[in-house]
């Protein structure tokens, strides 16, 4: 089965991931810009980072036959440095022109401070101005419900196209509000701290899957890129057809990401002879 990893931080992973992902059917990964585990001090560090994920990583993935796309943003944790944020934002449009850059992300909220909210608004404004997709991070654990509500309030006050916005890391307590507002919702499957493969299938069975994306977890912390495949196995184990699985784990990413013409992987229909 062909699979798309919509949210994958390749910079924090080894080539062994790519090899194993390729063996398991992954045809494309999308790498949002994220926190490096420490607060970067210079705009130039971001610029090099954006160059790495927009120029170098596609070549590393290509060695294993995997397409690599990216997103650019200042993540919420570093939004407290307003000077740095403004400077990086000033450089972002040049990266949005890169042939594998799909949009602005992951922006969003971490502790939902005013600086984070200002940064989120500035990122969304740039995205809308340049007709880009947006990927929005929502907070972890106990901050999630409040942070997601705040994200929705910020977006409600802006002139945005919900079709082009993906709000990520939803769980059972936040998914309904995101879908009701017309946005795409992403589940991120972690070994411990976020949604799990089984719970992701519960959510897929409970809600309309039209605007749902499923991500694995792949960063420098305790994470596992194969939680996505675990979710697929669980989905199939519950009796859902191969085409239904393809719709969720391949075609939905194609439909959302395909709003950017740089994404040329098309939805698949399985046909028996």
């Amino acid at each position, binding site marked *: 089965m062909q699979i798309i990893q919509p949210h994958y931080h390749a910079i924090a992973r080894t080539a062994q991931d790519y090899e194993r992902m390729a063996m398991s059917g992954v045809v494309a990964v999308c790498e949002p810009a994220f926190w490096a585990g420490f607060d970067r001090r210079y705009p130039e560090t971001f610029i090099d980072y954006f160059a790495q994920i927009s120029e170098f990583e596609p070549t590393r993935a290509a060695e294993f036959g995997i397409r690599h796309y990216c997103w650019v943003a200042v993540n919420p944790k570093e939004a407290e440095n307003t000077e740095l944020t403004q400077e990086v934002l000033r450089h972002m449009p040049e990266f949005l022109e890169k042939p594998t850059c799909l949009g602005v992300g992951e922006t969003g909220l971490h502790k939902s401070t005013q600086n984070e909210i200002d940064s989120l608004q500035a990122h969304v404004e740039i995205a809308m101005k340049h007709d880009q997709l947006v990927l929005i991070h929502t907070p972890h654990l106990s901050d999630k419900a409040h942070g997601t509500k705040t994200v929705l309030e910020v977006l409600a006050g802006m002139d945005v196209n919900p079709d082009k916005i993906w709000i990520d890391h939803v769980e059972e307590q936040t998914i309904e509000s995101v879908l009701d507002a017309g946005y795409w919702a992403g589940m991120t499957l972690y070994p411990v701290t976020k949604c*799990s493969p089984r719970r992701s299938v519960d959510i897929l*069975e409970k809600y309309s899957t039209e605007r749902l994306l499923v991500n694995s977890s792949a960063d420098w912390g305790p994470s596992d890129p194969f939680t996505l495949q675990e979710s697929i196995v669980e989905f199939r184990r519950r009796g859902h057809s191969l085409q239904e699985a393809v719709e969720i784990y391949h075609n939905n990413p194609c439909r959302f990401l395909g709003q950017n013409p740089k994404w040329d992987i098309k939805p698949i229909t399985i046909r028996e002879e």
Partner: protein
Amino acid sequence: MLEPQKTLDTYYLEARRDLLEVAALLDRYDRSVEKQGQKAEDESRLNSLLEAMSLLSGGDHPKANRTEQLLNHFAKVS
């Protein structure tokens, strides 16, 4: 052995995850019952889980042997 606070801090998130999995299983069962319009023929495994949680949440456990108690409890269900 870890100190009390360190013990909680070290294992809290994993325990949180495991409890969420149990909650998700119970929700999954309820949704299935609703969709199928009937309960499982034998609900003893469901009742066993509910009783186990009751055992965990209730009273003092001076011997710190909840795990042993649960194993003995689960042994009653095939």
